[in-house]
């Protein structure tokens, strides 16, 4: 077996910015292999985002080790971490984090500004293709405040995909979407996963977790369950079912 892309060992995160230190992650050990599709679940405040930020090299753990692709992340400096975020990882934030007053297309282009040299046309084409994947190509020149929450979420996904990451980290990517759009997004993720991209996503919804392959449950900063998804759903099939149901509803109402 190939070495894991993510290997964390006894990872801790203590926030001591406030009056009492908050022990948000308390000793998580985990291996994720290439091509896995992991759902991270847990109650609000259980430390999911905290763990994701550390996996995404945005935040440094208080204790414990993190090997990404065999590289000890703790040993890297700011710029090396930035390059990893840019090249290896795609991150979808819980609160979109799009640049305001900047079009969807320019938002999607953003990571390419900081990567290897690309022509303006190439950047544009790639960003457009990613917007197409999330079904937003027709909104390329809209500003975030002209887009619905779900559409903004999808721009954020397009931005995460634009540099062809090996690992996609998504913090509640369907949190703001209705069930149909959620299934669409899961379809996108499943397609990416088929292509070999490793995906870790946070979700609250059990039926969204069923589109993944592995289910992790976090409680008070520790993993309490780690098991494969049994009755896995396939997004394209679910979409067909919905379409059929809609057609039937139309017939009966007509």
């Amino acid at each position, binding site marked *: 077996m190939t070495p894991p892309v993510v290997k964390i060992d006894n990872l801790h995160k203590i926030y001591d910015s406030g009056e009492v230190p908050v022990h948000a992650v308390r000793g998580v050990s985990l291996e994720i292999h290439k091509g896995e599709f992991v759902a991270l679940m847990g109650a609000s405040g259980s430390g999911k985002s905290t763990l994701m*930020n550390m996996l995404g090299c*945005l*935040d440094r753990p208080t204790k414990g080790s993190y090997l990404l692709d065999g590289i000890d992340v703790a040993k890297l400096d*700011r*710029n090396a971490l*930035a*390059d990893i*975020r*840019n*090249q290896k990882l795609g*991150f979808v*934030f819980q609160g979109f*984090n*799009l*640049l*305001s*007053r*900047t079009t969807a297309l320019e938002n999607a282009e*953003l*990571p390419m*500004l*900081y*990567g290897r*040299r690309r022509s303006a046309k190439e950047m544009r084409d790639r960003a457009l293709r990613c917007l197409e994947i999330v079904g937003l190509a027709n909104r390329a020149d809209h500003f975030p405040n002209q887009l619905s929450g779900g559409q903004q979420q999808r721009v954020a996904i397009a*931005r995460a995909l634009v*540099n062809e990451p090996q690992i996609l980290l998504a913090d509640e990517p369907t949190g703001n979407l209705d069930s149909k759009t959620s299934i669409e997004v899961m379809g996108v993720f499943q397609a990416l996963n088929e292509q070999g991209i490793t995906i870790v996503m946070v979700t609250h919804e059990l039926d969204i977790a069923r589109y993944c392959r592995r289910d992790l449950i976090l409680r008070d900063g520790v993993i309490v369950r780690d098991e494969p998804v049994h009755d896995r759903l396939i997004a394209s099939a679910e979409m067909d079912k919905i379409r059929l149901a809609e057609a039937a509803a139309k017939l009966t109402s007509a």
Partner: protein
Amino acid sequence: MRLLNTTRVALRALRRNKMRSVLTALGIIIGVCSVIAMVSIGNGARAQIEQQVANLGQNVITVFAGSFGAGGVRGGWGSSARITVDDALAIQREVPGAVAVSPVIFDHSQVIGDGQNWYTSIIGAGPDYAEIRNWPIAEGSFFGESDVRSIAKVAVVGKTIVDELFPNEDPLGKVIRIRNLPFKIIGVLAPKGFNLFGQDQDDLVIVPYTSHMKRISKRTFINSIMIEAVSEKAIPLVQQNITDLMTQLHNGRSTDFTVRNQVELAQTATATSQIMTMLLGAIASVSLVVGGIGIMNIMLVSVTERTREIGIRLAVGAHGRDVLMQFLTEAVILSSLGGLLGVLLGMICSQLVSKYLGWPVLVSTSSVVISFGVSAVVGVFFGFYPARKAAQLDPIDALRYE
């Protein structure tokens, strides 16, 4: 991030806040504009002084009564120390390179002619005075050696005298009364106009120095001696010979007189205006610095406002240097656009000053280049601190910033 991308991002940010960008740049615009205008006025003054010194005539050496150093006149010209017509005659006789020599004596008096009267300068001079000063005669002629010898009551007048006393008349042959003595006008000088200090250079009457000393001022000493050297190259030697001769004539009392050539006079005259130019430029530079502080202030506000944006950029892979360059570029674009507009506005201001106030101005290339360069540097200098502040943000903290 490539420079092109950085510039595009910076321009976009500036366009998003047009009003603020314009107001921020205004500080620099005003600063550069005032530097250019002030220095132009100072330079214009200097150029005019230089020209006036050149106006004295060509290859002119002047012997003044009394001594004055670089700091200016000490004790007033001719106040205590004495030089005489004999000194002038000796120079004419004994210094070979002195092709023309004229004693000069000044006074002021009321002049009456045709029932009008006018208060003016009365200058006593030799027959070569007009030639030494390179001053053409418009009508009639200058007086000659015989007029000097005969202490003739003849006068050559400036254009202003004609305008005041004999408007619409032919002044030649007319009589003016100086201290109740009649002088016949035999010549009119070509007009020279006003000098930088607003003095009317044509407001004068010139009479033979003998007539001046014997009939008008009743003085035995003169104010100065003007000498024309044979050529520009001969000036130093002639000046040295004059100094030696004068020292000998005055028994070694070198404080009795001062010998200056034209270049030295120009230096003395322009030294003051140079100091003025520097002073004006310095004052104007202060406003440039104030403009820079304005940029720093706005950039600091902007960095705080855009903390989340910075967080997002860092999160998707921007290096600290990329963020630094982005904000630095914004500051430099602001300041150099401000500098460019300031240069244009400064040139326009200078033109307006010369047109409506009639002051001479000279927009020098160096002041344009320097103040534009300084404004760009001001952008780098005052933009650096806010930009570095932005670059040093922690991505996750910046993202959480409300």
